[in-house]
């Protein structure tokens, strides 16, 4: 078995285990749901139990598939496809920063920041030679140019509440 194959089955086994764990977790929660069925014969705890058992079953079957040659009917990715983690970290950072700062920075600036970081991740993934400050500024301006009209459109026309920068609501 090659290194790649072993890696793939390890990941698949983790997915299977995850599904089993989800099922067990749901079962744990189902214990505390009362079974008062009334006339219905089945109470509010019926579906939770069904779903948890089904998930444990599915997860177990996946583990069986992993042991006997891996998941069936998989689409094959392009050969030699390696995930590009550094770009992913940039993008994740963008989303996290956005979630953390949206209420303090306001929608427009927080989203622009997210835009800059996510675009940076994607640029790196594409292998673009980063041309320094100019690209950062260009991305920042593009982000603002998307986020500001979106903010204005959604809050003014569609009356969706998005946090502005100031309490007066004009920004």
């Amino acid at each position: 078995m090659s290194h790649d194959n072993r890696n793939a089955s390890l990941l698949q086994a983790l997915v299977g285990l995850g599904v089993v764990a989800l099922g067990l977790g749901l079962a744990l929660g189902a214990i505390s749901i009362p079974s008062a069925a009334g006339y219905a014969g089945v109470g509010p705890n019926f579906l939770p139990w069904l779903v948890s058992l089904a998930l444990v079953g599915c997860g177990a079957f996946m583990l069986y598939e992993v042991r006997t040659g891996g998941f069936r009917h998989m689409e094959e990715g392009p050969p030699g496809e390696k995930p590009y983690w550094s770009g992913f970290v940039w993008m994740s950072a963008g989303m996290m920063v956005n979630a953390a700062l949206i209420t303090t920075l306001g929608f427009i600036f927080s989203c622009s920041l997210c835009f800059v970081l996510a675009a940076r991740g994607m640029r790196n993934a594409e292998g673009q030679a980063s041309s320094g400050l100019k690209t950062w500024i260009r991305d920042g301006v593009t982000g603002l140019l998307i986020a500001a009209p979106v903010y204005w459109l959604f809050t003014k026309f569609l009356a969706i509440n998005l946090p502005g920068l100031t309490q007066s609501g004009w920004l």
Partner: protein
Amino acid sequence: MDIWNQLIQGFVTAGTPVNLLWAFVGCALGTAVGVLPGIGPATAVAMLLPITAKVDATASMIFFAGIYYGAMYGGSTTSILLNTPGETASMVTAMEGNKMAKSGRAGAALATSAIGSFVAGTIATILVTLFAPVVAEFAVKLGPPEYFMLMLLAFTTVSAVLGQSTLRGLTALFVGLALGLVGMDQITGQARYTGGVPELLDGIEIVLVAVGLFAVAEAMHAVLFEGRVVESENKMSRVTMTRDDWRRSIPAWLRGTFIGAPFGCIPAGGTEIPTFLSYAAEKKLAKGPNQAEFGTKGAIEGVAGPEAANNATVTAALIPLLTLGIPVSNTTAILLGAFQNYGIQPGPQLFTSSSALVWALIASLYIGNVMLLVLNLPLVGFWVKLLKVPKPQLYAGILIFATVGAYGMRQSAFDLFLLYAIGLLGLVMRRFNFPTAPVVVGMILGPLAEAQLRNAISIGEGSPMVFLQRPMSLTLLVIVLSVLVLPRAVKWWNTRSGAAKSG
């Protein structure tokens, strides 16, 4: 003649300047999201679900329907011009459309797919007009046992029949059902899996799950795996069709429509099967030099037929959605969510309780089709420019819109963290080939199915035998079982007889 009066009334409602504007914006936005890789109609509608809080029901349903429709038109543009098909629905179009574009006939391919979509969409809308009220009238007679069986059928087809692996389809369905469990039980009001968090009593927002699974996961996948993928774009040519193109396209459109429409009507969802069937039919029916074009220079029938089938299926899928309240795809499931946001439950009563809304929606389908024809034929050059949006800006921009959808619904920054987590789930699912439609359908339809199940067993005074005692529900049960068993039995039989022959 009652239908005509109501339809005319619908045209009056849909034809007000404001509603026309909504339809137009919806169609334009739909075409744009169809053209843009990485974002589809389900994502777009999901991101815009927060508008249901303020915009009135008729206007927003017209708007959403425009997006739903427009994306089908736009999707074919991408699949003909780019060498990477966007959504499954346009995969078949891509096969011949790409070949046509490579041999310098991109314009003809775009024209036949736009006009074909128009023809099929209009015929299918006529079918919706004529048959939806009839189905609704019939559906009034169905009780909880039958409804539950219909939903079971929808679950089965969406998870076990479509997609590559039944096991992963079912897993996705149960994950969706689990997400649907969170919140208050519909019948007893019992809180389930809320962990004492009051926000979770209302359940998990559909927007969050849909936007996370589709948009965020897509962006993550792009940054992880698609950075080095080089997309080549085919050259545009003038969007016209020769007399010969018309002669070959018209029958293909009609055949595609009649293959596609029935698939939309049954709760068996998915456009993969009808588009492939239509493709196979066209390939078989083509003769001489036309047949030689399949797979080489690109045959126009191979674009016209599947594209028509696709649109007919998508339009006809509104029949089960509106009359039974059963969604069979990602986008229809989210449309159902939109109805629920207004406190409207699609189902047989919809045609009586919200008849103005339904007929305005149907009328807007006719109007939308005309708008889309105009948007996609003379203006196709404009949409093609969207293909030039560089990936960094595209995906970063998608994340901004994802924020609007996720944050706009409940104004909770916590939801943005949850969005990221669901994005990760979507990424894992995509990486390991889990289908996403069962998650969304399971989450939205699950609570309804549970209520029907419990009501049905109440009717049977606590006995599940009620499902076997009523002819209609028994029939549906048999269909569900055969959908599950037959394909496997046939496969087993084939391999057995194959083995017997070779052995």
